[in-house]
Protein backbone atom coordinates (compact mmCIF):
# COMPACT_ATOMS: atom_id res chain seq x y z
CA UNK A 1 0.00 0.00 0.00
CA UNK A 2 1.38 3.33 0.85
CA UNK A 3 3.10 2.87 4.16
CA UNK A 4 6.53 2.19 5.31
CA UNK A 5 6.71 1.05 8.87
CA UNK A 6 9.83 0.61 10.89
CA UNK A 7 10.66 -1.53 13.86
CA UNK A 8 9.92 1.48 16.04
CA UNK A 9 6.30 1.35 15.00
CA UNK A 10 6.08 -2.39 15.44
CA UNK A 11 7.66 -2.18 18.88
CA UNK A 12 5.47 0.68 20.05
CA UNK A 13 3.20 0.00 22.99
CA UNK A 14 -0.05 0.60 21.09
CA UNK A 15 -1.21 -3.01 20.99
CA UNK A 16 -0.19 -3.74 24.58
CA UNK A 17 -1.92 -0.62 25.87
CA UNK A 18 -5.06 -1.52 23.96
CA UNK A 19 -5.05 -5.08 25.28
CA UNK A 20 -4.63 -3.84 28.81
CA UNK A 21 -7.18 -1.05 28.66
CA UNK A 22 -9.99 -2.72 26.78
CA UNK A 23 -9.22 -6.31 27.72
CA UNK A 24 -9.36 -7.70 24.21
CA UNK A 25 -6.51 -9.85 23.03
CA UNK A 26 -5.63 -8.38 19.65
CA UNK A 27 -2.54 -10.57 19.35
CA UNK A 28 -4.84 -13.58 19.26
CA UNK A 29 -6.19 -12.58 15.84
CA UNK A 30 -4.97 -14.78 13.01
CA UNK A 31 -6.47 -12.69 10.26
CA UNK A 32 -9.11 -15.06 8.99
CA UNK A 33 -11.16 -12.11 7.82
CA UNK A 34 -14.51 -13.41 9.04
CA UNK A 35 -15.20 -10.00 10.60
CA UNK A 36 -14.69 -8.28 7.27
CA UNK A 37 -16.67 -10.91 5.41
CA UNK A 38 -19.76 -10.23 7.46
CA UNK A 39 -19.43 -6.49 8.06
CA UNK A 40 -22.48 -4.69 6.64
CA UNK A 41 -20.70 -1.35 6.39
CA UNK A 42 -17.46 -2.61 4.88
CA UNK A 43 -18.40 -1.20 1.49
CA UNK A 44 -17.91 2.31 2.86
CA UNK A 45 -14.79 1.70 4.90
CA UNK A 46 -11.29 2.72 3.98
CA UNK A 47 -9.84 -0.35 5.73
CA UNK A 48 -11.64 -3.58 6.44
CA UNK A 49 -12.07 -4.49 10.12
CA UNK A 50 -9.44 -7.22 9.86
CA UNK A 51 -7.00 -4.67 8.47
CA UNK A 52 -7.64 -2.38 11.42
CA UNK A 53 -6.82 -5.29 13.74
CA UNK A 54 -3.68 -6.07 11.73
CA UNK A 55 -2.58 -2.44 11.82
CA UNK A 56 -3.12 -2.50 15.57
CA UNK A 57 -0.94 -5.58 15.84
CA UNK A 58 1.76 -3.67 13.98
CA UNK A 59 1.48 -0.66 16.24
CA UNK A 60 0.20 1.71 13.56
CA UNK A 61 -1.58 3.96 16.03
CA UNK A 62 -1.70 7.08 13.90
CA UNK A 63 -3.15 5.33 10.88
CA UNK A 64 -5.70 3.39 12.91
CA UNK A 65 -6.97 6.33 14.91
CA UNK A 66 -7.29 8.55 11.85
CA UNK A 67 -9.06 5.89 9.80
CA UNK A 68 -12.65 6.34 8.69
CA UNK A 69 -13.44 2.72 9.46
CA UNK A 70 -13.55 3.16 13.20
CA UNK A 71 -16.24 5.81 12.87
CA UNK A 72 -18.24 3.88 10.33
CA UNK A 73 -18.60 0.83 12.56
CA UNK A 74 -22.29 0.63 13.45
CA UNK A 75 -21.73 -1.55 16.55
CA UNK A 76 -24.01 -4.22 15.10
CA UNK A 77 -21.74 -6.90 16.69
CA UNK A 78 -21.89 -9.25 13.69
CA UNK A 79 -18.10 -9.51 13.79
CA UNK A 80 -17.97 -10.06 17.55
CA UNK A 81 -20.43 -12.92 17.66
CA UNK A 82 -18.80 -14.75 14.75
CA UNK A 83 -15.12 -14.28 15.58
CA UNK A 84 -13.51 -17.71 15.91
CA UNK A 85 -10.87 -16.24 18.21
CA UNK A 86 -13.46 -14.75 20.54
CA UNK A 87 -12.23 -11.22 20.06
CA UNK A 88 -14.81 -8.52 20.68
CA UNK A 89 -14.02 -6.45 17.60
CA UNK A 90 -16.88 -4.03 18.19
CA UNK A 91 -15.47 -3.30 21.64
CA UNK A 92 -12.07 -2.62 20.07
CA UNK A 93 -13.72 -0.19 17.66
CA UNK A 94 -15.36 1.54 20.64
CA UNK A 95 -12.03 1.77 22.35
CA UNK A 96 -10.35 3.17 19.26
CA UNK A 97 -13.03 5.82 18.88
CA UNK A 98 -12.66 6.84 22.51
CA UNK A 99 -8.91 7.08 21.97
CA UNK A 100 -9.44 9.16 18.84
CA UNK A 101 -11.65 11.55 20.81
CA UNK A 102 -9.04 11.81 23.53
CA UNK A 103 -6.25 12.51 21.11
CA UNK A 104 -8.39 14.72 18.90
CA UNK A 105 -7.55 12.70 15.80
CA UNK A 106 -10.62 12.69 13.61
CA UNK A 107 -10.49 12.59 9.82
CA UNK A 108 -12.06 15.65 8.27
CA UNK A 109 -14.11 13.50 5.85
CA UNK A 110 -15.66 11.67 8.74
CA UNK A 111 -16.66 14.40 11.15
CA UNK A 112 -20.41 13.77 11.05
CA UNK A 113 -20.49 10.73 13.28
CA UNK A 114 -18.19 12.04 16.03
CA UNK A 115 -20.01 15.34 15.87
CA UNK A 116 -23.39 13.65 16.12
CA UNK A 117 -22.30 11.62 19.11
CA UNK A 118 -21.11 14.69 20.95
CA UNK A 119 -24.24 16.66 20.16
CA UNK A 120 -26.39 13.72 21.19
CA UNK A 121 -24.73 13.46 24.57
CA UNK A 122 -24.82 17.20 25.07
CA UNK A 123 -28.50 17.02 24.32
CA UNK A 124 -29.04 14.34 26.95
CA UNK A 125 -26.97 16.26 29.44
CA UNK A 126 -29.16 19.31 28.94
CA UNK A 127 -32.56 17.66 28.81
CA UNK A 128 -32.23 14.24 30.36
CA UNK A 129 -33.98 12.71 27.40
CA UNK A 130 -33.45 13.11 23.70
CA UNK A 131 -34.75 16.38 22.26
CA UNK A 132 -34.94 15.42 18.60
CA UNK A 133 -35.58 18.87 17.19
CA UNK A 134 -32.62 20.24 19.07
CA UNK A 135 -30.42 17.34 17.96
CA UNK A 136 -31.33 17.62 14.30
CA UNK A 137 -31.14 21.40 14.28
CA UNK A 138 -27.78 21.54 15.94
CA UNK A 139 -26.38 18.72 13.85
CA UNK A 140 -27.55 20.24 10.58
CA UNK A 141 -26.12 23.57 11.53
CA UNK A 142 -22.71 22.31 12.61
CA UNK A 143 -22.30 19.71 9.91
CA UNK A 144 -23.23 22.02 7.07
CA UNK A 145 -26.18 19.88 5.99
CA UNK A 146 -28.55 22.77 6.61
CA UNK A 147 -31.57 21.43 4.83
CA UNK A 148 -31.16 17.74 5.48
CA UNK A 149 -34.46 15.96 6.01
CA UNK A 150 -36.46 19.20 6.14
CA UNK A 151 -38.99 17.60 3.86
CA UNK A 152 -39.65 14.94 6.42
CA UNK A 153 -40.22 17.40 9.24
CA UNK A 154 -43.82 18.49 8.45
CA UNK A 155 -44.94 14.87 8.14
CA UNK A 156 -43.38 14.08 11.45
CA UNK A 157 -45.07 17.02 13.14
CA UNK A 158 -48.41 16.09 11.73
CA UNK A 159 -48.11 12.57 12.99
CA UNK A 160 -46.95 13.96 16.36
CA UNK A 161 -43.75 12.07 16.07
CA UNK A 162 -41.53 15.02 16.75
CA UNK A 163 -42.15 17.70 19.31
CA UNK A 164 -41.02 21.28 19.01
CA UNK A 165 -40.45 21.57 22.71
CA UNK A 166 -37.82 19.70 24.66
CA UNK A 167 -38.90 16.91 27.01
CA UNK A 168 -38.92 17.61 30.69
CA UNK A 169 -37.23 15.59 33.36
CA UNK A 170 -37.69 16.77 36.93
CA UNK A 171 -34.35 16.17 38.49
CA UNK A 172 -32.08 17.20 35.66
CA UNK A 173 -29.25 18.11 38.05
CA UNK A 174 -28.88 14.46 38.89
CA UNK A 175 -28.33 13.57 35.26
CA UNK A 176 -25.83 16.34 34.78
CA UNK A 177 -23.93 15.14 37.81
CA UNK A 178 -23.68 11.70 36.26
CA UNK A 179 -22.16 13.20 33.15
CA UNK A 180 -19.73 15.24 35.15
CA UNK A 181 -18.54 12.38 37.31
CA UNK A 182 -18.31 9.94 34.40
CA UNK A 183 -16.15 12.39 32.52
CA UNK A 184 -13.89 12.86 35.51
CA UNK A 185 -13.53 9.17 36.35
CA UNK A 186 -13.15 8.09 32.75
CA UNK A 187 -10.70 10.91 32.08
CA UNK A 188 -12.68 11.91 28.98
CA UNK A 189 -13.08 15.46 27.70
CA UNK A 190 -16.73 16.02 28.17
CA UNK A 191 -17.24 19.62 27.31
CA UNK A 192 -15.55 20.18 24.00
CA UNK A 193 -17.89 19.29 21.19
CA UNK A 194 -15.15 18.90 18.65
CA UNK A 195 -12.17 20.88 17.67
CA UNK A 196 -13.56 24.16 16.18
CA UNK A 197 -10.92 24.02 13.48
CA UNK A 198 -12.13 20.62 12.38
CA UNK A 199 -15.72 21.79 12.34
CA UNK A 200 -14.75 24.77 10.27
CA UNK A 201 -12.77 22.66 7.83
CA UNK A 202 -15.65 20.27 7.42
CA UNK A 203 -18.15 23.11 6.96
CA UNK A 204 -16.09 24.77 4.30
CA UNK A 205 -15.51 21.41 2.62
CA UNK A 206 -19.25 20.79 2.45
CA UNK A 207 -20.11 24.28 1.25
CA UNK A 208 -17.40 24.29 -1.37
CA UNK A 209 -18.60 20.88 -2.49
CA UNK A 210 -22.13 22.14 -2.83
CA UNK A 211 -21.08 25.23 -4.76
CA UNK A 212 -18.95 23.11 -7.04
CA UNK A 213 -21.84 20.75 -7.60
CA UNK A 214 -24.15 23.63 -8.49
CA UNK A 215 -21.58 25.06 -10.90
CA UNK A 216 -21.20 21.75 -12.62
CA UNK A 217 -24.90 21.33 -13.10
Amino acid at each position, binding site marked *: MKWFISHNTIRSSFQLTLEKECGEKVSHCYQCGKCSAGC*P*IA*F*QMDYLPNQIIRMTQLGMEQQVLSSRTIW*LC*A*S*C*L*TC*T*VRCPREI*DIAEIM*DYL*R*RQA*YKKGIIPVEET*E*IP*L*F*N*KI*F*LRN*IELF*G*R*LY*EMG*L*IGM*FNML*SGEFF*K*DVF*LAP*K*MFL*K*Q*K*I*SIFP*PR*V*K*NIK*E*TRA*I*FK*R*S*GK*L*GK*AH*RDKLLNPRLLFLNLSRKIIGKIAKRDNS
Partner: protein
Amino acid sequence: MKYAYFPGCSLHSTAKEYDLSTKEVARALGIELIEIPDWICCGATPAHITMHLLSLALPVKNLLKAKEMDSFEVVTCCAACFSRLKIANHFMQNDNKHRKNVEEIVGEPYKGEVKVRHFLDVLINVFGLKNLTERVTNKLSGLKVACYYGCLLTRPPEITQLDDLEEPHLMDDLMKVLDAEPVKWPYKTECCGASFSLTKTDIVLKLSGDILQMAHDEGAQAIVVACPLCQSNLDLRQAAIKKKYKKDFNIPILYFTQLVGLSLGIEPKKLGLDKHIVNPLPLLKERKVLVDK
Protein backbone atom coordinates in the same frame (compact mmCIF):
# COMPACT_ATOMS: atom_id res chain seq x y z
CA MET B 1 -47.95 -9.40 36.09
CA LYS B 2 -46.56 -6.05 37.07
CA TYR B 3 -43.50 -4.44 35.58
CA ALA B 4 -41.59 -1.20 35.64
CA TYR B 5 -41.73 0.18 32.14
CA PHE B 6 -38.81 1.93 30.50
CA PRO B 7 -40.03 3.39 27.19
CA GLY B 8 -36.87 5.18 26.12
CA CYS B 9 -36.55 8.38 24.12
CA SER B 10 -37.68 6.99 20.76
CA LEU B 11 -40.93 5.68 22.11
CA HIS B 12 -41.79 9.16 23.28
CA SER B 13 -41.13 10.72 19.91
CA THR B 14 -40.46 9.02 16.58
CA ALA B 15 -41.81 5.68 17.73
CA LYS B 16 -44.89 6.93 19.52
CA GLU B 17 -47.02 4.21 17.93
CA TYR B 18 -44.81 1.56 19.52
CA ASP B 19 -45.44 3.08 22.92
CA LEU B 20 -49.16 3.37 22.26
CA SER B 21 -49.57 -0.15 20.95
CA THR B 22 -47.45 -1.68 23.71
CA LYS B 23 -49.57 -0.02 26.37
CA GLU B 24 -52.78 -1.03 24.62
CA VAL B 25 -51.71 -4.65 24.30
CA ALA B 26 -50.48 -4.76 27.87
CA ARG B 27 -53.76 -3.33 29.11
CA ALA B 28 -55.78 -5.80 27.06
CA LEU B 29 -53.82 -8.74 28.38
CA GLY B 30 -53.72 -7.55 31.96
CA ILE B 31 -50.01 -6.90 32.04
CA GLU B 32 -49.42 -3.89 34.25
CA LEU B 33 -46.74 -1.54 32.97
CA ILE B 34 -45.80 1.32 35.27
CA GLU B 35 -43.58 3.88 33.67
CA ILE B 36 -40.44 4.57 35.65
CA PRO B 37 -40.95 8.11 36.89
CA ASP B 38 -38.45 10.60 35.62
CA TRP B 39 -36.48 8.09 33.55
CA ILE B 40 -33.58 9.42 31.56
CA CYS B 41 -31.99 8.44 28.27
CA CYS B 42 -29.95 5.21 28.32
CA GLY B 43 -27.15 6.88 26.36
CA ALA B 44 -27.65 4.74 23.27
CA THR B 45 -24.76 4.27 20.88
CA PRO B 46 -23.13 7.70 21.28
CA ALA B 47 -22.45 7.04 24.95
CA HIS B 48 -20.52 3.81 24.59
CA ILE B 49 -18.57 5.21 21.69
CA THR B 50 -17.58 8.31 23.59
CA MET B 51 -17.43 7.55 27.31
CA HIS B 52 -17.58 3.97 28.49
CA LEU B 53 -18.46 4.75 32.09
CA LEU B 54 -21.29 7.03 31.07
CA SER B 55 -22.76 4.29 28.92
CA LEU B 56 -23.02 2.15 32.07
CA ALA B 57 -24.00 4.86 34.51
CA LEU B 58 -27.05 6.11 32.60
CA PRO B 59 -28.78 2.71 32.37
CA VAL B 60 -27.83 1.92 35.96
CA LYS B 61 -29.45 5.14 37.10
CA ASN B 62 -32.68 4.07 35.43
CA LEU B 63 -32.51 0.61 36.91
CA LEU B 64 -32.02 2.17 40.33
CA LYS B 65 -35.10 4.27 39.76
CA ALA B 66 -37.00 1.09 38.97
CA LYS B 67 -35.68 -0.42 42.16
CA GLU B 68 -37.02 2.53 44.10
CA MET B 69 -40.46 1.58 42.80
CA ASP B 70 -39.93 -1.78 44.48
CA SER B 71 -39.87 -3.39 41.11
CA PHE B 72 -37.23 -5.94 40.30
CA GLU B 73 -38.20 -6.40 36.68
CA VAL B 74 -37.95 -3.73 34.03
CA VAL B 75 -39.62 -4.08 30.66
CA THR B 76 -38.49 -2.18 27.65
CA CYS B 77 -39.50 -2.27 23.99
CA CYS B 78 -36.59 -0.55 22.33
CA ALA B 79 -33.93 -3.02 21.24
CA ALA B 80 -31.17 -0.45 21.79
CA CYS B 81 -32.32 0.40 25.31
CA PHE B 82 -32.73 -3.32 26.01
CA SER B 83 -29.17 -3.92 24.91
CA ARG B 84 -27.74 -1.03 26.93
CA LEU B 85 -29.64 -1.98 30.08
CA LYS B 86 -28.61 -5.62 29.73
CA ILE B 87 -24.97 -4.74 29.11
CA ALA B 88 -24.94 -2.40 32.11
CA ASN B 89 -26.36 -5.19 34.25
CA HIS B 90 -23.76 -7.58 32.91
CA PHE B 91 -20.92 -5.26 33.89
CA MET B 92 -22.40 -4.59 37.31
CA GLN B 93 -22.70 -8.31 37.94
CA ASN B 94 -19.34 -9.43 36.64
CA ASP B 95 -16.84 -6.59 36.61
CA ASN B 96 -15.79 -5.32 40.02
CA LYS B 97 -13.66 -2.49 38.71
CA HIS B 98 -16.41 -1.01 36.62
CA ARG B 99 -18.98 -1.59 39.29
CA LYS B 100 -17.03 0.43 41.80
CA ASN B 101 -16.65 3.32 39.37
CA VAL B 102 -20.29 3.30 38.34
CA GLU B 103 -21.45 3.07 41.94
CA GLU B 104 -19.36 6.12 42.66
CA ILE B 105 -20.94 7.97 39.75
CA VAL B 106 -24.56 7.18 40.57
CA GLY B 107 -23.88 7.38 44.30
CA GLU B 108 -25.60 4.12 45.18
CA PRO B 109 -24.60 0.48 45.40
CA TYR B 110 -25.99 -1.73 42.64
CA LYS B 111 -25.11 -5.29 41.70
CA GLY B 112 -27.30 -5.85 38.69
CA GLU B 113 -30.21 -7.21 40.71
CA VAL B 114 -32.99 -5.63 38.61
CA LYS B 115 -33.96 -7.99 35.83
CA VAL B 116 -34.33 -6.53 32.35
CA ARG B 117 -36.82 -7.97 29.89
CA HIS B 118 -37.90 -7.13 26.42
CA PHE B 119 -41.65 -6.85 25.95
CA LEU B 120 -41.41 -9.63 23.36
CA ASP B 121 -39.98 -11.88 26.03
CA VAL B 122 -42.77 -10.97 28.47
CA LEU B 123 -45.43 -11.59 25.87
CA ILE B 124 -44.09 -14.95 24.75
CA ASN B 125 -42.35 -16.42 27.76
CA VAL B 126 -44.33 -14.95 30.64
CA PHE B 127 -47.82 -14.40 29.28
CA GLY B 128 -47.37 -17.38 27.03
CA LEU B 129 -48.28 -18.10 23.44
CA LYS B 130 -50.95 -20.56 24.51
CA ASN B 131 -52.74 -17.97 26.59
CA LEU B 132 -52.41 -15.51 23.77
CA THR B 133 -53.98 -17.92 21.27
CA GLU B 134 -57.09 -17.97 23.41
CA ARG B 135 -57.30 -14.18 23.35
CA VAL B 136 -56.98 -13.73 19.60
CA THR B 137 -60.34 -12.63 18.25
CA ASN B 138 -59.29 -11.23 14.93
CA LYS B 139 -57.02 -13.57 13.05
CA LEU B 140 -54.52 -12.00 10.68
CA SER B 141 -54.97 -14.84 8.21
CA GLY B 142 -53.14 -14.55 4.93
CA LEU B 143 -50.94 -11.65 5.98
CA LYS B 144 -47.42 -12.45 4.87
CA VAL B 145 -44.88 -10.81 7.11
CA ALA B 146 -41.11 -10.80 7.33
CA CYS B 147 -40.00 -10.72 10.94
CA TYR B 148 -37.01 -8.49 11.26
CA TYR B 149 -35.03 -8.63 14.51
CA GLY B 150 -32.08 -6.36 13.78
CA CYS B 151 -28.69 -6.52 15.46
CA LEU B 152 -29.22 -5.74 19.09
CA LEU B 153 -32.06 -8.02 20.09
CA THR B 154 -29.93 -11.17 19.94
CA ARG B 155 -26.36 -9.91 20.16
CA PRO B 156 -24.31 -10.66 22.06
CA PRO B 157 -26.20 -13.83 23.00
CA GLU B 158 -24.51 -14.33 26.37
CA ILE B 159 -25.79 -10.94 27.48
CA THR B 160 -29.20 -10.61 25.84
CA GLN B 161 -30.16 -14.27 26.34
CA LEU B 162 -33.33 -13.72 24.40
CA ASP B 163 -33.45 -15.70 21.20
CA ASP B 164 -31.41 -17.78 18.80
CA LEU B 165 -28.37 -15.84 17.63
CA GLU B 166 -28.43 -16.40 13.88
CA GLU B 167 -31.97 -17.55 13.29
CA PRO B 168 -34.19 -15.90 15.89
CA HIS B 169 -37.78 -17.12 15.91
CA LEU B 170 -39.67 -15.46 18.77
CA MET B 171 -41.52 -13.01 16.55
CA ASP B 172 -42.16 -15.71 13.95
CA ASP B 173 -43.73 -17.86 16.66
CA LEU B 174 -45.81 -14.91 17.75
CA MET B 175 -46.98 -14.20 14.22
CA LYS B 176 -48.05 -17.80 13.74
CA VAL B 177 -50.22 -17.50 16.83
CA LEU B 178 -51.91 -14.49 15.24
CA ASP B 179 -52.39 -16.68 12.13
CA ALA B 180 -50.19 -14.38 10.07
CA GLU B 181 -47.71 -16.06 7.79
CA PRO B 182 -44.06 -15.35 8.61
CA VAL B 183 -41.93 -15.77 5.50
CA LYS B 184 -38.63 -17.63 5.61
CA TRP B 185 -35.95 -15.10 4.83
CA PRO B 186 -32.26 -14.74 5.55
CA TYR B 187 -32.04 -11.10 6.64
CA LYS B 188 -33.56 -11.42 10.10
CA THR B 189 -30.51 -10.04 11.84
CA GLU B 190 -28.88 -8.03 9.07
CA CYS B 191 -27.97 -4.47 10.07
CA CYS B 192 -30.22 -1.61 8.90
CA GLY B 193 -27.67 1.11 9.51
CA ALA B 194 -29.02 1.88 12.94
CA SER B 195 -27.70 5.05 14.40
CA PHE B 196 -26.46 6.39 11.07
CA SER B 197 -29.91 7.57 10.10
CA LEU B 198 -28.91 11.19 10.35
CA THR B 199 -25.17 11.09 9.90
CA LYS B 200 -24.61 8.55 7.15
CA THR B 201 -27.91 8.44 5.37
CA ASP B 202 -26.29 6.81 2.33
CA ILE B 203 -25.36 3.78 4.37
CA VAL B 204 -28.85 3.51 5.77
CA LEU B 205 -30.35 3.75 2.30
CA LYS B 206 -28.16 0.93 1.02
CA LEU B 207 -28.62 -1.40 3.99
CA SER B 208 -32.31 -0.74 4.51
CA GLY B 209 -32.84 -0.96 0.75
CA ASP B 210 -31.24 -4.41 0.73
CA ILE B 211 -33.43 -5.56 3.60
CA LEU B 212 -36.58 -4.27 1.90
CA GLN B 213 -35.52 -5.93 -1.34
CA MET B 214 -34.98 -9.26 0.36
CA ALA B 215 -38.32 -9.07 2.18
CA HIS B 216 -39.98 -8.17 -1.11
CA ASP B 217 -38.28 -11.04 -2.97
CA GLU B 218 -39.36 -13.54 -0.37
CA GLY B 219 -42.94 -12.42 -0.71
CA ALA B 220 -43.47 -10.39 2.44
CA GLN B 221 -46.29 -7.84 2.42
CA ALA B 222 -45.11 -6.17 5.57
CA ILE B 223 -42.10 -6.22 7.83
CA VAL B 224 -42.56 -6.74 11.56
CA VAL B 225 -40.00 -5.19 13.88
CA ALA B 226 -39.25 -4.91 17.57
CA CYS B 227 -36.93 -1.92 17.49
CA PRO B 228 -37.77 1.74 16.93
CA LEU B 229 -34.52 2.41 15.09
CA CYS B 230 -35.13 -0.39 12.62
CA GLN B 231 -38.65 0.84 12.12
CA SER B 232 -37.70 4.43 11.45
CA ASN B 233 -34.89 3.48 9.07
CA LEU B 234 -37.03 1.12 7.06
CA ASP B 235 -40.16 3.26 7.13
CA LEU B 236 -38.87 6.80 7.02
CA ARG B 237 -36.24 6.17 4.38
CA GLN B 238 -38.36 4.32 1.84
CA ALA B 239 -39.03 7.52 -0.06
CA ALA B 240 -35.33 8.27 -0.33
CA ILE B 241 -34.60 4.67 -1.32
CA LYS B 242 -37.16 5.01 -4.07
CA LYS B 243 -35.45 8.16 -5.26
CA LYS B 244 -31.92 6.76 -5.10
CA TYR B 245 -32.36 3.17 -6.23
CA LYS B 246 -35.52 3.63 -8.30
CA LYS B 247 -37.29 0.95 -6.33
CA ASP B 248 -40.72 1.53 -4.91
CA PHE B 249 -41.30 -1.10 -2.29
CA ASN B 250 -44.14 0.50 -0.39
CA ILE B 251 -43.81 -2.11 2.35
CA PRO B 252 -45.36 -1.09 5.67
CA ILE B 253 -43.11 -1.52 8.66
CA LEU B 254 -45.13 -2.56 11.69
CA TYR B 255 -44.34 -3.17 15.32
CA PHE B 256 -45.19 -6.63 16.59
CA THR B 257 -47.28 -4.97 19.26
CA GLN B 258 -49.46 -3.35 16.63
CA LEU B 259 -50.23 -6.68 15.03
CA VAL B 260 -50.89 -8.31 18.39
CA GLY B 261 -53.16 -5.36 19.16
CA LEU B 262 -55.07 -5.83 15.90
CA SER B 263 -55.56 -9.50 16.56
CA LEU B 264 -56.91 -8.69 20.01
CA GLY B 265 -59.48 -6.48 18.31
CA ILE B 266 -58.05 -3.12 19.30
CA GLU B 267 -58.87 -0.16 17.10
CA PRO B 268 -56.14 0.74 14.58
CA LYS B 269 -56.02 4.33 15.71
CA LYS B 270 -55.33 3.38 19.31
CA LEU B 271 -52.41 1.34 18.02
CA GLY B 272 -50.99 4.31 16.17
CA LEU B 273 -51.39 2.66 12.77
CA ASP B 274 -52.04 6.09 11.30
CA LYS B 275 -48.62 7.33 12.32
CA HIS B 276 -46.51 5.45 9.78
CA ILE B 277 -44.90 7.10 6.81
CA VAL B 278 -45.67 4.10 4.60
CA ASN B 279 -49.37 3.79 5.27
CA PRO B 280 -50.20 0.24 6.37
CA LEU B 281 -53.98 0.72 6.31
CA PRO B 282 -54.58 -0.11 2.63
CA LEU B 283 -52.74 -3.41 3.02
CA LEU B 284 -54.55 -4.22 6.23
CA LYS B 285 -57.88 -3.40 4.60
CA GLU B 286 -57.07 -5.50 1.58
CA ARG B 287 -56.15 -8.42 3.78
CA LYS B 288 -59.37 -7.84 5.73
CA VAL B 289 -57.62 -7.76 9.04
CA LEU B 290 -58.90 -4.40 10.22
CA VAL B 291 -61.51 -4.44 12.92
CA ASP B 292 -64.85 -3.21 11.68
CA LYS B 293 -66.38 -0.74 14.00
